[in-house]
C-alpha cells in the first residue's frame, strides 16, 4: 500500500485547523471520536495502530492460552499414565484407571464413516450447483445447503433421537444385517442408538462445509479450461472430470479435511445418538463413545484430580488432532484460492 507516502499536510502542525474543516464531511461521526481527534493525527495514528495490534495479538494469545491451559491441567494424568493413556482401553473412574483408546476409536470410526457418506454427496451437490444447474436455481440451492450449516448441533441431535434412530432400528439396520451381515460390520441387535447413527448425523452436518468449499474451489477453475475441454469435443461430464475436477483436486481435498476436522470435534449430536459406552466393537450397530462425548458427559461430574486431568488430556489430544487436520486443510485450500481467505462458513 502506498498510503504512508501520501501527503498529510496537518500531520505535524499542532493546530488541527485544516483537519477540523475537512472532517466536517462525516460530521455525524465527529463527536464519537472526539478523544482521538484532540490528540492529533500522528499520535492518533500510533494509538490506533497499537489498539488494533492488541486485538490482533489477542487472537494469537487466545490460541496460546488454550494450549497453555490444556497442557498445564492435563499434567497429572500425563505423569500418571504417560503414553499408555492412549493405548489402554479401561475407563474406570472408580479405580482411577484411565485409557483413552475406546474414545479415540469411536471418534475416528464415526468421523470416517461420516466422510464416507458425506464426500460423494457433497461433491455431487457442488458439481451440480456450479456446472449443471440452471442459473436461476443456483442461488436458492446454495442457500438451502448453507441452511443445513445454520442448524445447531443440538437440534440435529434432537431430530436424530426421535426420527433417525427409530428409522434405523426399524428399517435400515434389519435390512443391512440381512444383506450385509456376513461382513461382521452389521451384526447385533438393531437398537438404532449406534456408531452408524452417529456417522449418519455427522455426515448430514459436514455436507454443507465440504460442498461450500468445493463449490468455491470449482468456481476459481479458469473458464478457459472448460472451454478448451468442450472445444476438443468432450461431453459435459468429460469436461467436468478432465477440465474442472482434476484442476480442483487439492482444494476439494482441503474441503474434505476441513469437514473431517468438524466431524472429529462435533459433540452434541453425536453424544445424543452414539450410546456412550466406552467399548471397541467391530459392528457399527454397537454403541460407542467419542472423545468429545466423554468430555460432554463426564467433565462437570468428574470427581478427583486424576479424573479431571485425564478428561483434559483427552481434550488436549482432540485439540492437537483438529489443529493438525485444520492446518492441513487450510494450506490446501489456500494454495488453490491463492491466499484469498476461504470463506468462513457459519
Amino acid at each position, binding site marked *: 500500500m502506498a498510503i504512508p507516502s501520501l501527503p498529510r499536510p496537518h500531520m505535524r502542525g499542532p493546530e488541527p485547523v485544516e483537519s477540523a474543516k475537512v472532517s466536517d464531511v462525516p460530521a455525524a461521526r465527529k463527536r464519537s471520536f472526539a478523544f482521538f481527534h484532540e490528540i492529533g493525527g500522528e499520535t492518533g495514528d500510533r*494509538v490506533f495502530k497499537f489498539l488494533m495490534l492488541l486485538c490482533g495479538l489477542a487472537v494469537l494469545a487466545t490460541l496460546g492460552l488454550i494450549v497453555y491451559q490444556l497442557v498445564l491441567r492435563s499434567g497429572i494424568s500425563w505423569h500418571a499414565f504417560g503414553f499408555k493413556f492412549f493405548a489402554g482401553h479401561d475407563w474406570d473412574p472408580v479405580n482411577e484407571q484411565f485409557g483413552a483408546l475406546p474414545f479415540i476409536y469411536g471418534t475416528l470410526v464415526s468421523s470416517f464413516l461420516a466422510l464416507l457418506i458425506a464426500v460423494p454427496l*457433497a461433491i455431487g451437490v457442488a458439481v451440480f450447483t456450479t456446472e449443471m444447474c440452471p442459473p436461476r436455481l443456483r442461488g436458492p440451492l446454495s442457500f438451502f445447503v448453507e441452511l443445513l450449516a445454520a442448524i445447531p*448441533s443440538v437440534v440435529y441431535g434432537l431430530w436424530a433421537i426421535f426420527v433417525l434412530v427409530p428409522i434405523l432400528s426399524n428399517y435400515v439396520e434389519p435390512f443391512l444385517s440381512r444383506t450385509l451381515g456376513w461382513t461382521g460390520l452389521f451384526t447385533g441387535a438393531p437398537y438404532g442408538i449406534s456408531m452408524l447413527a452417529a456417522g449418519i448425523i455427522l455426515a448430514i452436518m459436514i455436507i454443507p462445509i465440504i460442498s461450500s468449499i468445493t463449490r468455491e474451489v470449482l468456481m476459481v477453475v479458469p473458464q478457459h479450461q472448460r472451454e478448451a475441454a468442450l472445444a476438443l469435443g468432450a461431453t459435459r461430464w468429460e469436461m467436468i472430470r478432465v477440465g474442472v475436477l482434476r484442476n480442483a483436486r487439492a482444494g476439494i481435498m482441503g474441503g474434505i479435511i476441513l469437514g473431517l476436522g468438524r466431524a472429529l470435534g462435533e459433540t452434541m449430536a453425536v453424544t445424543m445418538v452414539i450410546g456412550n459406552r466406552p467399548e471397541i466393537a467391530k459392528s457399527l450397530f454397537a454403541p460407542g463413545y467419542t472423545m468429545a462425548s466423554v*468430555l460432554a458427559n463426564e467433565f462437570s461430574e468428574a470427581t478427583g484430580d486424576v479424573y479431571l486431568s485425564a478428561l483434559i488430556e483427552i481434550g488436549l489430544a*482432540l485439540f492437537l488432532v483438529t489443529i493438525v*487436520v*485444520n492446518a492441513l486443510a487450510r494450506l490446501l485450500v489456500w494454495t488453490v484460492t491463492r491466499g484469498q481467505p476461504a470463506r468462513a462458513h457459519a
Partner: protein
Amino acid sequence: MPETAKSAGQTVLPISLRRRITDHVMTGVAVLTVIMVLVPLFAIFAYLVYRGVGSINWAFLTQTPKPVGESGGGMANAIVGSGLILALASILGVPVGVGAGIYLAEFGRNRFGDVIRFTADVLNGVPSIVIGIVAYSIVVLSQKHFSALAGGVALAIMMIPTITRTTEEMLLLVPQALREAAYGLGIPRWRTTLSITLRTATSGVITGIMLAFARVAGETAPLLFTAFGNQFWNLRTDQPTAALPLQIFNYAISPYDEWHRQAWAGALVLIVLIVTAVAAVRFAVRRGGFGAA
C-alpha cells in the same frame, strides 16, 4: 478416446453412445445427490415445525421449568439466559474481532499478518467442547463456581476468529481510491479507517458479526460446564445460568414425554431466532448492495 481418431475426417465429431450415456448418468447422479442432501434438510424442518408448533404456548415462553411430573412450565428463563450469555459474548468478542480484522486489513499485509490470519483460521476449527474446557479452567476455577460470564467467555472465543476474517475481507473490498481520497484531504489514517473504510464496509462487517452470532447462539457444548444451566431465573453474570440449547439437550435425553415436547418447542424457538437473524442479514446486505461478497 478412440472414437475421435476414427472420425477425424468429419467436421462435426459424433459422440459415441457410451459417452453420451455416461454424460446422462452422471447428470442423473448429481441430481440424485442434491435430492439426497435436501431431503434431510426438509425432513428436519418439517418435523421441527410439526412437533414444535404443537408444543409452543404462552406458558412455554413466560414460565420457568416445572418439576418432573407436573405438566406446563416453560423455558422463559433459558431464553433470557441465552440472551444474557450471548450479550456477554458479543461485548467481549465483537470489539476484539473487528479490531483484529482492521489490523489485518490495514496494517497486516505482511508475514506477521499472515501468522494472525492463519491462527484465526485454526482457532475457527478448534472443537467447541475444548473451548469449553479452557473457559472452565480460566473463569470457573477462579470464580469457584459456574457462571454466565464463563459461558460468555467461551462463546466470545468462538466468535472472534469468524468476525476477524469477515471484517478483514469486507474492509479489503473497499476501493483503495476511497482511502487515498481521504488521505488527500488530510484526514489522519485512523480517522480514515474508522469513518471512511469501516463505515463503507459496515453492512459486510455486520453480516460477519451476525453469522458469528448465529453460529454461537446454538452452541451447547461450550456451555455444559461453564454456564451449566439453572432451573430458575438468573440475571447475575456470576451465577449458573440456563441457556436454550442446554435446556433442549437436557430435556431431549430425559425419559419424559412432557420434556421431549418442550425440547421440540425450544428447538423451534432457537432455530426461528437463528434463521431469522441469518435471513434478515442476507436480505439487508443484498439491499445495501455493498459488502456482499
